[in-house]
């Protein structure tokens, strides 16, 4: 897909996601996930060195946080940090967003993270997601 197709889509998706979030509507998280997917597609079309490429990479991570898809935040952050080896500003922005996601997760599961630590909570989350059923979760 070209930028000329993706930009109108991401503009509409952002407006929709923000409207739903302002209303506290149940579809807000899905709408943010759609924004994240579109931003990722834009990021694939534009290099890190392009200001709009950097905007799209930050946007993909930011929208994944808003969608509370923290697994996706981790995957995108790792990929974009690797791509941004020569862009210290973007690296810092992505790292800041990843930290913001960790804080959001800690705030969401305060007792569990205090007891088991965030990495263990994330591992359980991944295992839960991958096996597609709640129990049993293996080591």
């Amino acid at each position, binding site marked *: 897909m070209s930028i000329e197709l993706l*930009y109108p*889509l991401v503009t509409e998706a952002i*407006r929709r996601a*923000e409207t739903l979030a302002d209303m506290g509507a149940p579809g807000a998280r899905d709408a943010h996930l759609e924004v994240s997917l579109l931003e990722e597609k834009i990021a694939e079309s534009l290099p890190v060195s392009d200001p709009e490429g950097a905007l799209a990479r930050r946007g993909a991570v*930011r929208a994944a946080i808003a969608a509370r898809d923290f697994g996706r935040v981790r995957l995108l952050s790792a990929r974009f940090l690797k791509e941004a080896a020569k862009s210290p500003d973007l690296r810092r922005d992505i790292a800041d967003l990843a930290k913001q996601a960790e804080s959001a997760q800690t705030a969401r599961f305060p007792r569990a993270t205090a007891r088991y630590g965030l990495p263990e909570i994330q591992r359980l989350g991944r295992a839960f997601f991958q096996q597609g059923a709640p129990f049993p979760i293996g080591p």
Partner: protein
Amino acid sequence: MHPLLPTSTAIEYGHRAAVGLERNGHTPGAALATRFDLEEVEALLHWLSPHPGAVDQLDKNRVTEDAAEAIALAFVHVARGWVARRRAQRGESADWWFHDSEARPVALEVSGIDKGDAGVVADRLRTKVKQVQQGKTANQRAACVVVLSAPAATVATA
């Protein structure tokens, strides 16, 4: 004017600008006081009047924000030839990304209020300029404050 602006979004912006302006007692053809840095020009705003019940269907704050964005998008294109690329998410330092006439990126933060005197506009513009200055990637950065009751649009480059 802005070929990458989705038609549905442009229509929605036009409608909400109409609702916001008429809510403030204006009629189509109203004079818009504009200022771009130090340059002051009077422009005219035209719109299609919404049906009388339209105002009840929309959130008041959202109308103010969208009307401000609609007026800002039109103003910066007419004044400087900036063409919208895309909307940015909240948390970015700017609401909109444009290309100027030489295809260099421009980041624009837009703020809308229903009422406010010159002092309120100046304060808000200062805050928004500071906000947009935090973004490092666009070559040019600007902030626009729109007051619907005037109506007036003020742009300051950062």
